């Protein structure tokens, strides 16, 4: 056993020495370091700018709302407030869908609005591929780094005849394999660990708390993902007829994972179940709103209910303002209609995201993307959680202000005004993202897919190596 350990260590040491001397390794390290530096700095800068803007805007908005002076409370709901989406610390590592999602949603009476102000609307035409972020480098560049180092590791030994020599000298194929895998893992660690350390440092300097409960599984999942590529690259190198064919197969695997599956998979889902158009969506809502009772009919309905509730026969005897109650009744109907339609649309988005993440069982890049975005808070589920909290807040604050009119018994509901005391009583919007435990339990299948992939590859290794050709 001790001898086995010694052999794989010797192989790993030798491989590392060779890597260190190779021009290919130095070039890849240089390029990767430059890209990681760019991704870290731009990610940090973007997070800092967003946080500063968010803090400033939240303060200014709250102050503006509380000092709007004498105003009709229902008019105040028409002026509305904005719910701004806070920055999730790990999203500077993996911005995921965030550039394609609105950063703010207008909260006003009578309707639920779409989130607006998507960063991608200002997208330059330079790149249609993913932006250079830590996550995209982890997902695309690191596997390519592994492939370009590993494709020839065993195949070339066979082509040069050194593989037979090594085996004759007493190494087993498995020991050789483990040694080479360890060398690749160390080379990768040399590249990635400083990046992780510096990124954590930047996160700490930024003033935000480091979300360890999300960070540890986040890094763990990437370690599994890179492990899959190390194992796969070495197995392909061991089984291929030549280093050239090993390279072509591995590049094909990378290409299908990174480029083809995400686009084609999602495009296919969209083709099977097309989304409604914006016009159809709004038309359906308008149709249901048109079917609601008009102001007079609603007043009659609310009046009858209130008279019955308070046991009086005349509206003058009511302890509440009838028009205020009608406004709130109207709001409840509008909210219900919008809620039903938006819920259908958002659940459609969520379902597609879940279906897409199931492709992770077949394609590890999809699994890591789903898991990484979920942990970074940059997936659609997080956005839907934010929108749902914002909508709940909208209904609560609109109801609070409408009810303040209802309480103003005997006044003209539309001429009645309130002052800053009332605005100060309206609670501010505070959003808390889902807990790490919730996210982990929801994303567990993606993590399991990565684990299963690695297990299968490790389990298949002895069988693959048993059939490995020693000479070309």
């Amino acid at each position, binding site marked *: 056993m001790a001898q086995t350990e010694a052999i794989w260590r010797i192989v790993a040491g030798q491989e590392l020495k060779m890597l260190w001397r190779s021009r*290919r390794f130095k070039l890849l390290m240089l390029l990767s370091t430059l*890209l990681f530096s*760019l991704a870290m700095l731009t990610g940090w800068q973007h997070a800092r700018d967003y946080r500063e803007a968010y803090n400033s805007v939240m303060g200014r908005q709250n102050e503006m709302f509380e000092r709007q002076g004498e105003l009709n409370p229902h008019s105040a709901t028409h002026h509305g407030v904005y719910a*701004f989406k806070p920055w999730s610390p790990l999203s500077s590592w993996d911005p995921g869908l965030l550039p394609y999602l609105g*950063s703010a949603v207008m909260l006003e009476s009578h309707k639920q609005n779409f989130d607006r102000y998507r960063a991608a*609307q200002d997208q330059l035409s330079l790149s*249609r591929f993913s932006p250079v972020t830590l996550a995209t480098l982890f997902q695309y560049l690191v596997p390519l780094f592994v492939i*370009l180092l590993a494709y020839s590791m065993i195949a070339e030994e066979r082509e040069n005849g050194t593989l037979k020599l090594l085996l004759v000298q007493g190494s087993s194929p498995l020991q050789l394999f483990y040694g080479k895998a360890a060398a690749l893992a160390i080379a990768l660690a040399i590249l990635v660990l400083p990046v992780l350390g510096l990124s954590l440092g930047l996160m700490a300097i930024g003033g935000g708390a480091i979300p360890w409960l999300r960070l540890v599984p986040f890094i763990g999942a990437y370690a599994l993902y890179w492990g899959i590529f190390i194992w796969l690259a070495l197995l392909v190198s061991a089984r291929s007829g030549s280093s050239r064919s090993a390279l072509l197969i591995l590049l094909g695997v990378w290409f299908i994972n990174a480029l083809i599956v995400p686009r084609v998979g999602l495009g296919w889902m969209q083709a099977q179940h097309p989304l409604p158009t914006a016009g159809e969506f709004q038309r359906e809502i308008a149709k249901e709103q048109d079917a609601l009772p008009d102001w007079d009919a609603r007043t009659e309905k609310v009046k009858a209910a209130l008279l019955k509730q308070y046991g009086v026969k005349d509206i003058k005897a009511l302890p509440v303002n009838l028009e205020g109650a009608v406004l709130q009744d109207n709001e409840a109907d509008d909210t219900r209609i919008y809620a039903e339609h938006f819920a259908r649309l958002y659940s459609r988005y969520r379902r*597609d995201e879940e279906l897409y993440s199931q492709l992770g069982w077949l394609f590890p890049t999809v699994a890591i993307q789903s898991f990484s975005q979920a942990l970074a808070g940059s997936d659609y589920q997080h956005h839907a959680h934010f929108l749902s909290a914002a909508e709940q807040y909208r209904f609560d604050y609109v109801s609070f202000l409408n009810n303040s009119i209802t309480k103003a018994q005997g006044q003209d509901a539309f001429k009645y005004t309130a002052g800053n005391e009332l605005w100060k009583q309206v609670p501010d919007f505070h959003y808390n993202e889902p807990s790490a435990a919730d996210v982990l339990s929801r994303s567990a299948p993606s993590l399991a897919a990565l684990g299963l992939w690695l297990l299968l590859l490790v389990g298949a290794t002895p069988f693959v190596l048993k059939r490995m050709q020693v000479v070309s």
Partner: protein
Amino acid sequence: MSRSDSSLLPILGVARFELRRLRSALIWLTGLLLIFSALALYSGAIQLRHQSNNAHLIQVQEQEYRAKQSKRVAKRVKELKAKGKALSPDSKTYRNPANLAQHGTPAILPNGPLAVVSIGLSPLQAQSTQITLADPALLESQENLQHPLQLWTGHFDLVFVLVYLLPLLLIAISFDLTAGEQASGNLKMLLVQGGGLQELILGKLTARVAVLLGMLSLLSAMAWGASLVVNQPFIWVRWGLLLLLSCCYGAFWLGLASLLNALRWRAANIAASLAAIWLLGVWVIPGSSQQALQSLVPVPSRISFVQSYREATEKVRQESSQLLGKYMEDHPDLAAAGADNEYALLQLSKEQAIAEAIRPVVDTYQSQLDQQQRVARWLQYLSPVTVFESALMQLAGSGPERQQDYKIQVQSSHDQWQQYFMPAIKQNQSLMPEDFTHTPTFDYQELRLRNLSSVLVPETLFLALLAAILLGYSLKLYHRYQVIESEPA
């Protein structure tokens, strides 16, 4: 037989031989290309239908609104006539021209000239803008519903196949142009059998150019067929230019593969290098340029922009609160009596004040965006992939230039709208039923190729020149190529 004929024949002979040698690879690659192109065109057709349906619905809704309002006005006019009263001015809100002017007219951006081929940035761009009397900075644009996950992954369209996949197919048949035969010793054998190295290389390159042309012909037939199926016009001039650009782009990749082979590298090293160059070209250079540019020339935060708008609105509201009761401000349609031009003009002046207050923020935003675009236009020349993609999106009408042109046309249409309605509002005239069919309408005038030439010509020349340099230099290297030498690098 002339001298040129005698040198051409061996080249064609080699080309025929190469095509036979590559036959099985070509069957696979053509099959892949067919599958990918069919998927891409299907995806393009789905997106095109999604956009067309939305545009159609916006138009239908507008027609319904106008028909309803026109009927209402006709009924009122009939009543007034029956009572022998003056037809104008009328106190009814729905007869106030300001009412129709502020309802507006939709300015719809139609699908691009080659929409089935390129989806490009169109899912992120405004498809419709409601032109009203409001300042153009405040006009509301509408994008169609798009799946955020699909926006993130990007669409799989034919431009994607041409820009990203075609080079890989060409790399697959060219990375061992001579490297494999050099390593196995077959190159020496081939030359011993007669013919020069130059003829051999030219023959091999001719075969690959023929493959490229064959693939492009296949794509042309498929794209034309797809446009027939989705009932969209197929603009052959634009498609022809697209093919010309694709030839230059394909020649660039062939030239690159030829150059690396001429350097006597090993086939695996050439494949790895070409894959790395492809990745640099499609992702690393454009992606990092974009990130760096957005950091160096940042646009102000969008959420700060929202807040500035809110503050301007609130300031104007507080200043105008003396003028009209809040009830009428929030529910003008309920205010049957007294809703006259005073209210309409107040609304206009308020919008004007808001627009003026936020203009500095909008201007800063726009000037930073313009600066980004200007620098991006130069930065794109760092990668031939970006140059090619930009040219294709312009030809297909799915890039930022068409959107910019659309905004300019919306602005001009807004001026026309204002000129049409303001005299009637000021003179307190009332709408007649026929007015609902006589208002100005927006009809997007497609950007002509002449307007795009200032961008397309340099882009085409750049790609052609790059391909010529690479092919020329590789042939020069082959001229000095030593078939029998030490081990290749």
